[in-house]
């Protein structure tokens, strides 16, 4: 058990992952970082060095400012729809009902099996503000459905709802699993002590489930911003006037529609930095325990 060559064993285990990461992640990121200092259209033989201009543009161009603001709005919506709502529902399922838990779990998860492309298609049809089923039904009640694709905020809402449809079940299960690992005896103890449920949830359950909670929260933001890419691309292409675009989509737009790799890379790097800040938060609160294993 004190064998010397076992020192290298962990690195052997890490090797496959490490190679993959270096080739497909680390080097590409460095390359993108490099590109963010140039003006280039992806294929021209020369790249023009522009220093920090691309970064400056990210923060000064009104369109980019709008997109950054949108990104924040997306985050708020995603957190509410894809995190708070599933969390609430998982608490309800865990603590407030006793029957049918299994059925709910099974059904909630089903949309997660679908591709977002499918989701985006189906929802554009269903939500067509003039001639979709919902619009027809609303019309019968004399309500005109707002033309959501013309309003940035409404478009964002709809797009978030579409990702919500897909992600809800997954997050719900994750959170429910976290709640499931809370020892039953604690709930029993509170029951004997006559502690009201919501109070117990607020005072004990949520703090105990904080690890997985924050994990899901950050996942919701980071992956959510990427998930909305597909519906944006399929439905609004970022419109009206960048009203539904976010930083991820804008990165794509700059790279593959406008062929401004410099701006695109700078945007990507800024996005990455924002995500890293989130990562830092997650480490602070979730991975802290990782240090403890002996």
């Amino acid at each position, binding site marked *: 058990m004190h064998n010397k060559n076992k020192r290298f064993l962990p690195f052997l285990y890490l090797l496959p992952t490490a190679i993959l990461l270096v080739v497909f992640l680390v080097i590409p990121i460095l390359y993108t970082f490099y590109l963010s200092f140039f003006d280039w259209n992806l294929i021209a033989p020369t790249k023009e060095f522009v220093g920090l201009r691309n970064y400056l543009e990210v923060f000064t161009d009104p369109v980019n400012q709008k997109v950054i603001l949108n990104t924040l709005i997306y985050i708020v919506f995603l957190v509410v729809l894809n995190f708070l709502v599933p969390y609430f529902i998982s608490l309800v399922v865990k603590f407030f009902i006793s029957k049918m838990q299994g059925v709910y779990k099974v059904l909630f998860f089903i949309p997660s099996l679908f591709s977002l492309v499918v989701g985006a298609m189906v929802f554009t049809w269903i939500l067509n503000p003039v001639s979709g089923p919902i619009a027809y039904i609303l019309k019968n009640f004399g309500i005109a459905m707002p033309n959501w694709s*013309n309003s940035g905020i409404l478009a964002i809402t709809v797009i978030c709802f579409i990702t919500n449809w897909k992600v809800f079940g997954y997050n719900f299960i994750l959170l429910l699993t976290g709640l499931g690992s809370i020892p039953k005896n604690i709930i029993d103890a509170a029951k004997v002590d006559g502690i009201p449920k919501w109070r117990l949830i607020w005072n004990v359950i949520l703090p105990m489930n904080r690890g997985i909670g924050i994990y899901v929260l950050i996942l919701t933001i980071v992956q959510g911003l990427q998930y909305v890419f597909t519906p944006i691309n399929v439905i609004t292409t970022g419109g009206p*006037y960048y009203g539904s675009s976010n930083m991820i989509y804008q990165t794509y737009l700059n790279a593959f*529609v406008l062929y401004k790799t410099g701006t695109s890379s700078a945007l990507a790097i800024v996005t990455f930095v924002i995500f890293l800040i989130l990562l830092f938060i997650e480490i602070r609160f979730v991975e802290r325990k990782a240090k403890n294993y002996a």
Partner: protein
Amino acid sequence: GKKTSATSVKHITYWHVNAQTQGGATVDELVKKFNDTHKNIKVTAKYNPDMYKGLMQNLQSAQASGKVPDITQVGWAYDNYFASNFKYMTPTDAAKKFDGNSKFIDSNFTKRTLSFAKDSKGHLVGLPYSLSTPVLFINKDILSKYNIQEDSLATWEGIKEASKKIHDQSGKYGLYIQEPADTWAQQGIMLSNGADIQKGGKAAFASAGGVGAYKYYQEMVNDKLALHTPWAQGMDSFIKGDVAMAFTTIAQASHIKKSASFNAAAIEAPHFKDHKTVVPVGGSMLAITAQDSEQQKAAWEFEKWMYKAEAAVTWSKGTGYLPPTKVALESSAFKDYVKENPMLDPAVKTLDNAVPWTSFPKKGLQAEQAMIDARDKILSGSDVKSTLETAQDKINAQQK
């Protein structure tokens, strides 16, 4: 035997944008036919999703990796961008090199048609392959219900009146103008109000004509006479009978025919009073991107075959586009086809009023984006004149 023939076979790849719903099957069919009749050339057709933008995107990556296709279908909007960023062989060169003359080009295409495929320097980049024009699709059931004469729809003013009538009585929208990720249709409206999009390599659409056209459009939207929504949803609404007229590409014809449960028809693109109809042409050209001379030769041969009347008409039927060559347009096969599909008729007629799709020499894609942005802003209510001027200035600044 087999081995020697195998070595002499040239493999070429053909990149296109035709989805299954839009002629994809026809492309496969044509390619198969060509391969069957040409033992020494084998063409592989590769479909690129997301239309010309998607294809261009893939071509970028391909170029960067050095694995380019041999023949590429390039949308008009990417004309200049393609010309200045990719390596290709011009049809003129190909004809000279492999035929020894340019008879093929001259005899098949009109001057006007060829002009669509020229870059800002006037060089031919590829051969026009598919042509389309915007037309006005109409829901005859609605029109007749509200007693609207088709003649009155020749002008935008007439359309407005008709829309008003329809809207007032039914609450339905009168008009939908396509809103994809380009301003093709909107340019058509401006051109039909006597405006120029570009003049001497500079953007010029913020003229009185351009502003007037957009003001018209904006008012229509504000008054709920025209529907302002992304393309797919707009067309859905038209097909479901919630919008009476749709100003969109002729390529939609067969879809409308197959889906609509009402009496649908098409009429020529309208114009403003005192002006005549001018529309930018839509569609694409075929460019030879092969680098090796043998490949280029095979590509050229494939191209020429594709332009044969029979092939061109077949393709047209499959895609809903108009054929590019004189021979094909005048062939009895195509004429019969138009007879069966009267919606195509106005499109063919409009071809005579078509001009090249404006494509700015520098940063053309960003220029197009600026115009899209202007459209979106105006439709969300911003001041027409200043918005167009800002966009124009922005584009012109990029041209320096």
